[in-house]
């Protein structure tokens, strides 16, 4: 038998020790020893890493904040732009709604021809109920043309320039509209006032007037076409010893929020003043 050389024996002992250590490590018997060795190392690593990251942040974070501030400003600008676009779109939507309503109204009365106009101002005097619209004689607007919305009667053209017109509302103190009750054959007048309230006047005492009755233009007098909604009776003033009864009227149109109107283009107003002045003279 060949004797074992000392070198081979030494190598076998080393392999045995290494395998033994590996076996002990895998089995968990070396954990306390490894903990004692590794803990200081990990603590040192953590301490150094924290310091390094602090220094790193000190030099790099301001640049990031600046970039973030810039990005934030860009995003804020974008939000502002988008909000502005939303407001513009909402505005356009409202205008489109108004125009669609006016278009529906125009389609419901195909015999009339209309000019759509935007309201661009009001009379500076608080005593007068006038509006300014953005269409004038260049667009075919003429003195006396009736002005309506999809809700009802607005007034009539009182003054015209090339590019704008002034409309006298039916709530003006100088406005008088001949009306008829929707459900009864009775004529009366709707009169404006300086406060903008409108009243029903000159209605025969025999007419049975009720709250809620609808008033339409009668077409008498030749200033307005017939059958346009004017308003609704809200309060009746009836005194036995007066010739006529009167009533407060709620106009169909909200004049304070008026934004767009239709001018009836093909209605010819009739000037009956020579007839009435002749009657007066007799």
């Amino acid at each position: 038998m060949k004797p074992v050389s000392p070198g081979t024996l030494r190598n076998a002992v080393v392999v045995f020790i290494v395998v033994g250590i590996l076996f002990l490590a895998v089995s968990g018997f070396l954990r306390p020893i490894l903990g004692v060795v590794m803990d200081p190392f990990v603590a040192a690593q953590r301490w150094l890493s924290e310091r390094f990251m602090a220094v790193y942040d000190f030099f790099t974070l301001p640049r990031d904040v600046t970039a973030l501030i810039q990005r934030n400003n860009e995003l804020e600008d974008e939000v502002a732009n988008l909000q502005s676009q939303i407001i513009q779109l909402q505005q356009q939507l409202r205008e489109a709604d108004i125009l669609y309503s006016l278009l529906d109204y125009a389609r419901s009365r195909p015999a009339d021809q209309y000019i759509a106009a935007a309201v661009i101002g009001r009379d500076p005097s608080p005593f007068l109920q006038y509006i300014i619209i953005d269409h004038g004689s260049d667009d075919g607007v003429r003195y006396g043309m009736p002005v309506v919305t999809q809700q009802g009667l607005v007034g009539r053209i009182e003054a015209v320039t090339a590019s704008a017109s002034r409309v006298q509302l039916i709530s003006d103190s100088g406005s008088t509209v001949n009306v008829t009750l929707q459900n009864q054959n009775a004529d009366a007048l709707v009169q404006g006032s300086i406060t903008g309230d409108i009243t029903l006047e000159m209605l025969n005492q025999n007419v049975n007037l009720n709250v809620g009755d609808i008033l339409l233009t009668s077409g008498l007098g030749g200033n307005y076409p017939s059958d346009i909604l004017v308003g609704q009776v809200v309060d009746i003033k009836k005194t036995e010893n007066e010739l006529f009864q009167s009533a407060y009227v709620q106009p169909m149109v909200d004049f304070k929020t008026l934004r767009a109107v239709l001018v009836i283009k093909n209605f010819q107003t009739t000037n009956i003043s020579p007839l009435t002045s002749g009657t007066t003279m007799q």
Partner: protein
Amino acid sequence: MIANYICIPVMFVLSVLQSTVISRITLINGSADVVMLAVAAWGVKEKGFNTFMWALAGGLFISIITAMPFYIPVGTYLFVAFLAKILFGRIWQSPIFMLIIVVFAGTIFGHFFSLFYLQINGAAAGLMAGLQNFTLPSLLLNFFFLFPMYVMISDLRKWVLPGDDYE
């Protein structure tokens, strides 16, 4: 030179503002009159007669827009300019107090002038109803806009007439 004609663009802008924005801001039936406020604010600091030009320019621009006859706004603003001219330097040397008096008197004068015209033309315009529904709310709104207008006109004066300020 520029001080003599600055009233024209300013009054143009204020007339448009009055028609489009201010006349929609109402209290009961009253509304502020920024053109009159501008005339008054310029008048309380003006030693010469330039305020009358402001009144004329404002009156003419407003008369283009309003359905009132031209002599109502022109007359009202000339009255305000005249009152400012009379009172200049007489009330405790204080333009602010003088401005309040001028605007107060100008508003009442303008409203009575308008009511008088409407009554002559057959409108049912009662004096008490006019006072309650129009004049008092308008006075309140005029006082609300008075100080911003005074500050703006004062700055404008400093710009067009440097060194000619009366405090």
